[in-house]
């Protein structure tokens, strides 16, 4: 739909193009006036006008005059309240004086994942025949001593182009470091979201800040966080991209109820991989390539995750593996030298490291803050609707399709600026938005201004975008640094980037003064459906549903990008440069051991999941999420067993970033049915099945990325992703779901219940439920004596118990609970 005679020849408003301008001109290179966004005049004519709120979602990219006047805030690093080995903290009142409850008592007793010994754990000396409380007792002993995994002096062989382990299995693993015990109240806090807001907003925060406090620890360092929920909403905290027990993973119905608290125990161990060759450690060795780096945590409560996260419940964590520390120490990655690789609290709580002005948090100084690194900047990108009249965060879910905002935040600050030096920085970006998919580029100031005035065509945009490196995606670093000029970030995705601000200003004379660059979003997205691929018709649901460019079919981009963060680059004095050498990483630098493709022979089961709209909500395989049943029951793989999952998008123009808990997955094949795009009709159209002409576009993704670890993979319409993963370490219930939080809340989610032994036939319907009863042992039976199912009372039951007869067909005989010792 195009209307003739509506061309606009120039933009009189500097830096404030409207959404309509963006839409129109990106499509055609010239403006047309074809869209139907409501105008202020139309709103004024509304007979029912008079609502108390004002916000401006239609002009979401419009920059206010005060944009880039507030500085980017990097979340402060939280300090553990107590540290020690297991015996020193378990069942001890470590949070005195204000909280006398001993550590672990706010836990849920012995969950099943603690009460069964998976076969693979013989590597630790656990006996699979021992179950129940006895298994828990035995594990405490086994995990504390793993002599074969300790004290290997030379971990790496480093050359300028390679890094190799001298011996596999030399990583410290479980309990290699003292347990860090944190306590985080979940509280309502006042925060001014925009300078032009009339009042501060009531935000939901972890520990009083938005985003929540940064936490840093080593791989192999167990962490307990007691979340103390003081909100009037139930919460469940998900450790996103980690490998941790089900009861500490943020399963949707394992709540922290209002006024209650719950101890989340994250051992932060590496999963074990099977080695045919064997070794002195046995046949199971820690999978070194699974060591996480950039983690985030956020709310995952049933049905209300979108609301809770939009109100502020998200934060970032960083985990450090030995080789990452090595890369920091040797200045391959940006670092402050020795201070960036040490934790003053490594062996226990040290003195003088806490900020007196901010009790509970570290001083942000070298030698005080663990892994101090001003050249490593976590950036949480979010968009929210802010009501200017009241200053509040408005949860306006756009017809429950996906929440988009009118105000763009980085680390909770609207349109911030950040002053940096002329050197390499590591920017760890997180898409913490409910439903926005970003395509990020970096533009120099002059190019950005030009883009806002006259727009940049696709070729010009690509040519003028500044280069950077990507060294990781989601939780994990990549095996080598790849050159990039843009990166697509779907909800929950992280991108680990190296931006060389020194090179960006390199050929300019020092007298030119500070130089300005903008981190911009070029993704044309105007509703919860996802980015658009065609901009000439506002009602056309057809999009180009790939998260990356394919030759001949590149992604459509906004010719007037949305600015997110302004970087001001200042020259560093020579002495400073001398004292703090720049990082040496460049395109092609080897960063860690390359991953290996999971071979076909290891695949013991293939499962297909179709993600589609149905009945006005969202479904997987034609079903809505039911937390009480398991939709898949992969066994903990022995001898390298793996599963292949086929994730299929059911169409309708929707984008669904699919997040799988517990395990990283590897991309095997990415197929796109371009022909089906052409016949897709209205949003609720029946998906095109079988596909018309699926094209394998995997080759358009660098192999380093394909084979890397992912925890969230984007599915555009008529797209099929084949992924492989191994299920390791933790039995129990986990979920996988669309990370458009509104879709997730409207039940586009499934359970997979990992079962502990290899004797489970993956083709047999899972005999499991996840309401909690089958997960709690210590002598309690799956069906309670009162004839009800549900988490037990002593465990802070999250739901009203359901009569057994009501569970009906969903009540499958639970596995026999182990004998009580």
């Amino acid at each position, binding site marked *: 739909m195009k209307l003739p005679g509506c061309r606009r020849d120039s933009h009189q408003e500097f830096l404030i193009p409207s959404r309509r301008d963006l839409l129109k001109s990106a499509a055609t290179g010239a403006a047309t006036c074809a869209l139907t966004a409501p105008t202020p005049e139309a709103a004024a004519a509304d007979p*029912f*006008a*008079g609502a*108390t*709120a004002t916000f401006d979602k239609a002009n979401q990219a419009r920059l206010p005059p005060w944009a880039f006047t507030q500085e980017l805030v990097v979340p402060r690093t939280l300090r553990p309240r107590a540290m020690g080995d297991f015996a020193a903290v378990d069942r001890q009142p470590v949070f005195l004086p204000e909280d006398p409850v001993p550590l672990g008592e706010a836990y849920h007793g012995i969950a099943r994942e603690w009460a069964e010994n998976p076969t693979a754990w013989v590597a630790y000396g656990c006996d699979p025949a021992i179950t129940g409380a006895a298994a828990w007792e035995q594990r405490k002993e086994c995990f504390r001593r793993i002599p074969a995994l300790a004290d290997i002096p030379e971990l790496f062989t480093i050359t300028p182009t390679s890094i190799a382990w001298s011996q596999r299995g030399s990583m410290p693993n479980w309990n290699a470091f003292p347990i860090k015990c944190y306590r985080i109240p979940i*509280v*309502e*806090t*006042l925060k001014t979201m925009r300078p032009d807001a009339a*009042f501060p907003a*009531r935000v939901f925060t972890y*520990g*009083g*800040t938005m985003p929540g406090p940064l936490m840093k620890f080593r791989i192999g360092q167990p962490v307990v966080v007691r979340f103390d929920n003081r909100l*009037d*909403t*139930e919460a469940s905290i998900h450790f996103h991209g980690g490998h941790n027990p089900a009861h500490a993973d943020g399963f949707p119905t394992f709540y922290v*109820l209002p006024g209650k608290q719950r101890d989340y125990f994250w051992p932060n161990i590496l999963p074990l991989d099977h080695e045919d060759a064997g070794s002195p450690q046995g046949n199971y060795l820690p999978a070194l390539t699974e060591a996480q780096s950039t983690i985030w945590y956020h709310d995952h409560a049933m*049905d*209300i995750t979108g*609301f809770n996260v939009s109100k502020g419940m998200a934060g970032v964590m960083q985990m450090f593996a030995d080789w990452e520390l090595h890369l920091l120490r040797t200045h391959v990655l940006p670092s402050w030298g020795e201070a960036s690789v040490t934790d003053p609290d490594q062996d226990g709580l040290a003195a003088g490291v806490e900020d007196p002005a*901010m009790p509970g948090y570290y001083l942000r100084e070298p030698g005080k803050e663990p892994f101090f690194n001003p050249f490593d900047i976590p950036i949480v990108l979010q968009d929210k609707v802010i*009501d200017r*009249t*009241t200053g*509040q*965060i*408005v*949860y*306006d*879910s*756009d*017809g*429950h399709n996906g929440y988009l905002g009118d105000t763009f935040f980085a680390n909770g600050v609207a349109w911030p600026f950040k002053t940096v030096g002329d050197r390499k920085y590591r920017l760890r970006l997180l898409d913490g938005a409910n439903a926005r998919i970003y395509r990020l580029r970096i533009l120099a100031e002059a190019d950005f201004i030009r883009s806002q005035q006259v727009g940049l065509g696709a070729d010009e945009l690509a040519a003028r975008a500044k280069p950077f490196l990507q060294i990781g995606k989601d939780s994990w670093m990549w095996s080598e640094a790849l050159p990039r000029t843009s990166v697509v970030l779907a909800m929950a995705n992280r991108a680990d980037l190296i931006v060389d601000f020194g090179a960006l200003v390199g050929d300019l004379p020092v007298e030119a003064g500070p130089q300005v660059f903008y981190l911009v979003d070029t993704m044309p997205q105007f*509703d*919860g*459906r996802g980015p658009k691929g065609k901009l000439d018709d506002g*009602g056309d649901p057809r999009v180009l549903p790939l998260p990356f460019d394919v030759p001949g079919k590149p992604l459509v981009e906004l010719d007037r990008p949305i600015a997110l963060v302004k970087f001001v680059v200042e020259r560093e004095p020579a002495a400073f440069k001398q004292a703090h050498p720049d990082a040496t990483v460049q395109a092609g630098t080897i960063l860690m051991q390359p991953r290996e493709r999971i071979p076909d022979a290891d695949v013991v089961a293939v499962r297909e999941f179709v993600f589609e709209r*149905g*009945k*006005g*909500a969202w479904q997987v395989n034609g079903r*809505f999420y*039911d*937390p*009480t049943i398991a939709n898949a029951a992969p066994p903990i793989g022995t001898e390298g067993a793996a599963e292949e999952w086929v994730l299929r998008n059911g169409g309708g123009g929707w984008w669904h970033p699919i997040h799988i808990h517990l395990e990283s997955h590897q991309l095997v094949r990415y197929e796109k049915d371009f022909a089906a795009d052409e016949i897709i009709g*209205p*949003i*609720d159209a029946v998906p095109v099945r079988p596909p018309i002409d699926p094209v394998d576009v995997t080759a358009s993704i660098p192999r380093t990325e394909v084979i890397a670890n992912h925890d969230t993979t984007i599915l555009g319409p008529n797209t099929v992703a084949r992924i492989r993963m191994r299920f390791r370490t933790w039995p129990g219930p986990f979920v996988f779901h669309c990370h458009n939080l509104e879709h997730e809340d*409207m*039940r586009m989610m499934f359970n997979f219940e990992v079962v502990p032994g290899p004797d489970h036939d993956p083709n047999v319907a899972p005999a499991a439920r996840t309401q909690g009863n089958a997960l709690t042992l210590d002598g309690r039976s799956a069906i309670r004596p009162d004839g009800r199912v549900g988490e037990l*009372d002593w465990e802070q*039951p*999250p*739901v*009203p*118990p359901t009569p057994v007869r*009501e*569970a*009906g067909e969903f009540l499958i005989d639970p596995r026999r609970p182990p004998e009580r010792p």
Partner: protein
Amino acid sequence: MPTVSASNAIPTSRLVDRIPDIPLVNHRGEDVRLVTDLLAGRAVIINSMFTVCRGSCPGTSQTLHDLRPALWPVFGPRLHIISFTLEPEIDTAEELRAYAGAYGADTRAANLPDWQFLTGTPAAIERMRRGLGLYDLDPAVDRDPTRHAAVLLFGNPDKDRWAVLPSSLRQGLLVEAVRRVAGFTFEQRYGIRG
């Protein structure tokens, strides 16, 4: 990082603050206001329907019919069920009353949550539908009442706690979710004492 407890002076921007007090008519012929009479102070379940619907409406209405006795012991009179028509020109109060009769809701019941069927001017219905987020992004789907979403919007307007779920979920799950999201007290919400 102060935790502010005395923040009463700060206005809220809840759904009920943002949506106008739209005038409507219920199936008993009574004039009602959306916020004052239907949302304020109550827990609510809301769906859209129209009387000649042969698609999802009968199933959804049956679900609501079945939910009434299940939720009465928990909420008593503090829970309202609201079904508003997508065809206000056709569905008069009389039409809605006849429809309600098929589900035993034409008159007030002493021991069941009140269930009102609502109509109004097309502009009023449109504004309510938009304000509650019960619309489809695709204009073609949105214009066609036969393709409306088979979902229940439920919540506690005063607390601004809301959720949307497909009406075809089994009743046990719906009861749990409505209790948890729309409940006033800890016990109502979670089935145990706080």
